[in-house]
């Protein structure tokens, strides 16, 4: 499954709708607002942070403080296919670092970055709550469990085909 690409106008309209829902509610509505804003944009660039700050009546520094605290929030755009490797305790023990290394090697980018054609990005997270499946890889909303590094090339090939790369 790929992220449904929105036009900048559609993004702006959707963000406006979210902001009007939380207008003036301050700090307590910040997390929900940021989460929904990130769903729309895929990440949280400065103009979005400014709008959120304005609408909620909190400072931009405050918004940035929350974004930089939670690894869930991203300051960089994600690829159309976002690879997210769980580095939580269970997954890590089960060898998720090797998965991450293999994905970085296969896509030729580092964790936190996006490929030049913006098709693929890699990130890591702390625990997706599916420890029974450790080690876990998420590609957008697709979950892959009990993976070994040698299964990675096939997974990447599948998405490359889907993306016509």
């Amino acid at each position, binding site marked *: 499954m790929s992220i449904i690409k929105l036009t900048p106008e559609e993004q702006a309209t959707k963000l406006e709708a979210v902001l009007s829902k939380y207008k003036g509610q301050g700090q307590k509505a910040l997390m929900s607002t940021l989460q929904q804003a990130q769903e729309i944009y895929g990440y949280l660039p400065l103009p979005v942070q400014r709008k959120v700050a304005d609408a909620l009546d909190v*400072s931009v*520094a405050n918004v*940035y403080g929350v974004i*930089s605290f939670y690894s869930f929030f991203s300051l960089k755009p994600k690829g159309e296919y976002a690879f997210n490797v769980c580095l939580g305790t269970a997954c890590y023990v089960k060898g998720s670092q090797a998965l991450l290394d293999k994905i970085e090697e296969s896509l030729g980018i580092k964790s936190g970055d996006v490929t030049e054609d913006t098709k693929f990005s890699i990130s890591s997270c702390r625990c997706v709550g599916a420890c029974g499946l450790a080690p876990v890889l998420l590609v957008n909303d697709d979950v892959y469990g009990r993976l070994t590094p040698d299964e990675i090339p096939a997974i990447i090939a599948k998405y490359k085909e889907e993306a016509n790369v």
Partner: protein
Amino acid sequence: MNMVNLTIDGVSVSVPSSYTVLEAAKEAGIKIPTLCYLKDVNQAGACRICLVEIEKARALAAACVMPVSEGMVVHTNSPKVRDTRKNTLEMILSDHNVDCLSCIRNQNCELQTLSQEYGIRKVTFSGVKSSSVMDTKSFSIVRDSSKCVKCGRCVAACQKQSIGLLSFLNRGFETTVGPAFDISMADAPCIYCGQCIVACPVGALYEKEETEQVWNAINDPSKHVVMQVAPAVRAAIGEEFGLPIGTRATGKMFAAIKRLGADKVYDTNFGADLTIMEEGTELINRIKNGGVLPMITSCSPGWVRFCEFYFPEFIPNLSTCKSPHEMEGAIIKTFYAQKNGIDPKDIFVVSVMPCTSKKTEAEREQLVNKDGLKDVDCVITTRELARMIREAGIDFKSLPDDGPDSDLLGEYTGAGVIFGATGGVMEAALRTVADILENKDLPDFEYTQVRGVEADVKEATVNLAGKDIKVAVAHSTAAARKLLDSIKDGTNNDYAFIEVMGCSGGCVCGGGQPIIDAQTLMSIDIRAERAKALYEEDKILPERKSHKNSQINKLYEEFLGEPNGHLSHELLHTSYSKREIYPDSVLED
């Protein structure tokens, strides 16, 4: 009031139920050490220095946030408490840039004091130090995060100003305090009020020092150095030399400055009197000619920046008057230069100010004259002046009293002196405007209803020549925000004149004033104490209305013509412009 009885270190006290253990201990005369706590600013329980042992409680409690309860038995000085505090201190020091001897806060640092009090001889924890930022880009404030103890006092102080420029960024060991994106304060919408500096317990935030430039100018024989001192400086400089808070040190201050070696020393009160002539006239003209009202004062550069960033729709309301020291600078480089036959290019004007925002104000392009000369060349804070006095080996406390030089710009009135306290500019303006409108020397000129620090927004209705006008005074930018919001939403639509000062209490508590530690601030309201010194000076001066300053009148006769006249407009008035908040360009680098 609901009272609660408790025992602290064997002392029984009865305190209101709303008290914390820290406040109750204070009442009982027992000192509990603090670091992140700052009365009326920060109450976070974050640093764990104020831990106390409470009988029957599960763990040690932070006294600054622990509410009192009936029958509570508290120990502030048990071995467990002392050991824990020491441990905490060592942990803080393990990630602190401990270069105390060359630190700007050496001997005025709350962390240093605690380390001394707790006999920390070595830091047992070693390891990696977190990465740090040294931000020296602005003209006003330096941020050195290697000294930061993450107490959050600056974050809270900035929040209290309703600006919230500083925040905790990142997480865990990587946590820092700074503006969004960890950009320079110079690129963020900072007003440079410096309340973060006076809130900082350590040397992580301080003014951009310019004492070297002043020494260089003094030592340069081709420079004619004129120093001027703001009214609020006299109300606090004594604190730097061990005099009690609230001591009026006017005489010793002038004696000390003269010994530094400047060619001429004046009082910015002259500029304040001049401001009243111009601003009072501007107000009368605005009222008579249907100009934009309410007119809002423009003396406080922190407030002016706040207006430009956060309330640009009120820029037409700002008085076009330059601030007093800028007016005085402009007169020094014209009238004074002509009278003394000195080339203005050779004159170096130094302003000693209670303010960090004045440093940036002096760099405004609107405050450069048509020959490309800045009205004021250099601004130093009260603290920097104290450093220069110490460096010169001057024994401040034993100096004989002196005054400013008496020629040309040497006279000042009580109206000028009170500029340094909240309500002062308003009162000074009313004294003159009332006299001008009634064309007599009115005997009742103390407008006490605009004085004081109890309310952050003060209102009064004053009768000027048979007409009631409504005025308001706001101190702190949070108060200004509150007041301006009430004007915007139509709640208040009948003010004619408003005074705004960027800092709570006015200039006497500006960001350039001596830094008072949190323990002292628990029992003294320095805003009120310092203001007293100014009202005391107002009372003893022979003239207390700006238009009765004979040298001001001579300045108009011989040079300026009339208030708001052509030359005044060129030299004494200025303009403002809207500023963008976090424009996209801040991330381009």
